[in-house]
């Protein structure tokens, strides 16, 4: 995946062009200068072709990570929406969902261009740090859940809690039901913010916010269709396993981009990601196995089936 920089002049960085970064040195030039001469274009044309061919790994990583993260959050949001919709008012619930979607879309539209305008190394450090902090928190929770130290997220249980809370919120008012609107709005907005964050960080770093947004859109659409089909919370979706995978991907990309942005050169260039992802996955699975063997009083959740089956 990495390629030699020989003969490409001082602007070319061999390590930054395919798997994880999504940018060639010529992209960097564009990002920092905002323009590109025809001479440069001709000079770097072969490199650009190589970049396009080798982008599939980066695009795949981007799309899969965003899709999984978005699907998980959409399942959780769907549970809230179904609960308030069934018990309170569908009209008010849908207005709340619509309002939240508008806010999320506006945030993406406003912050996306601002992020992509940052110089490439600043962007990588910023994105790398955020992805690392976010990814490690996701992975930490997933490891604790898989090892039985934290209760697994259960959509049926969450649905019951929402139903009870909605039932105790008083009579449904005519017109706009404030409870249904507020709960639907907050639920979709809070779950959606994590998705917006992932779409923006992944998308901006690879200059492909559109692809990230499309992957998120497909995930939401599939979850909504599944929700309409079953008329119930999607309790059978392997949420904890998906969160484990998302945690590994976010942390891996954060590690790669963060180090690159801080000035480090990875051995093997972009191919290093192919080692980082499986190594981190094995490390996390090893932590789960180790934590499960710890002596002591077994917490209630430990009896449950763990998410990743190790």
């Amino acid at each position, binding site marked *: 995946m990495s390629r030699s920089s020989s003969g490409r002049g001082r602007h070319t960085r061999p390590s930054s062009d395919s798997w994880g970064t999504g940018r060639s040195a010529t992209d960097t030039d564009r990002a920092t200068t905002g323009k590109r001469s025809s001479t440069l274009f001709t000079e770097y044309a072969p490199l650009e072709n190589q970049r396009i061919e080798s982008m599939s790994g980066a695009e795949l990583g981007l799309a899969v990570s965003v899709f999984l993260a978005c699907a998980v959050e959409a399942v959780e949001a769907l549970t809230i929406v179904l609960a308030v919709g069934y018990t309170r008012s569908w009209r008010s619930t849908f207005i709340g969902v619509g309002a939240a979607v508008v806010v999320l879309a506006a945030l993406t539209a406003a912050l996306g261009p601002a992020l992509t305008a940052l110089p490439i190394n600043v962007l990588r450090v910023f994105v*790398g*740090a955020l992805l*690392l*902090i976010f990814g490690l928190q996701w992975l*930490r929770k997933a490891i*604790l859940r898989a*090892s039985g130290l934290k209760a697994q997220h259960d959509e049926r249980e969450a649905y019951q809690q929402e139903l009870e809370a909605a039932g105790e919120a008083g009579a449904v008012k005519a017109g706009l039901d404030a409870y249904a609107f507020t709960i639907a709005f907050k639920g979709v907005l809070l779950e959606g913010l994590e998705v917006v964050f992932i779409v923006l960080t992944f998308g901006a770093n690879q200059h492909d916010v559109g692809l990230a947004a499309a992957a998120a859109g497909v995930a939401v659409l599939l979850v909504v269709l599944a929700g309409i089909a079953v008329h119930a919370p999607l309790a059978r979706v392997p949420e904890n396993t998906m969160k484990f995978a998302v945690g590994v991907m976010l942390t891996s990309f954060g590690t790669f981009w963060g180090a690159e942005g801080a*000035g480090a050169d990875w051995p093997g260039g972009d191919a290093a990601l192919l080692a980082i992802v499986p190594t*981190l996955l094995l490390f996390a699975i090893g932590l789960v196995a180790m934590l499960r063997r*710890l002596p002591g009083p077994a917490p209630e959740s430990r009896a449950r089936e763990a998410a990743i089956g190790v």
Partner: protein
Amino acid sequence: MSRVEGFLRFLWDFVVGDDWRIAVGVVLALALTALIADTSVAAWWILPVAVAVLLGMSVWRVARSRV
């Protein structure tokens, strides 16, 4: 709690999460990477090591508190 306090608490929970040590560790590891990268010593290994240490210590603290 005022709206501002509520928003700040939300922001903290959203970005930093359950274990603030992870966020601090990541920032320190990135700073160390930048410092080492300016020398002739390889700096790529710092973040993977930091990830392993931060993640391991974070889950270990939870496990130890349950024993």
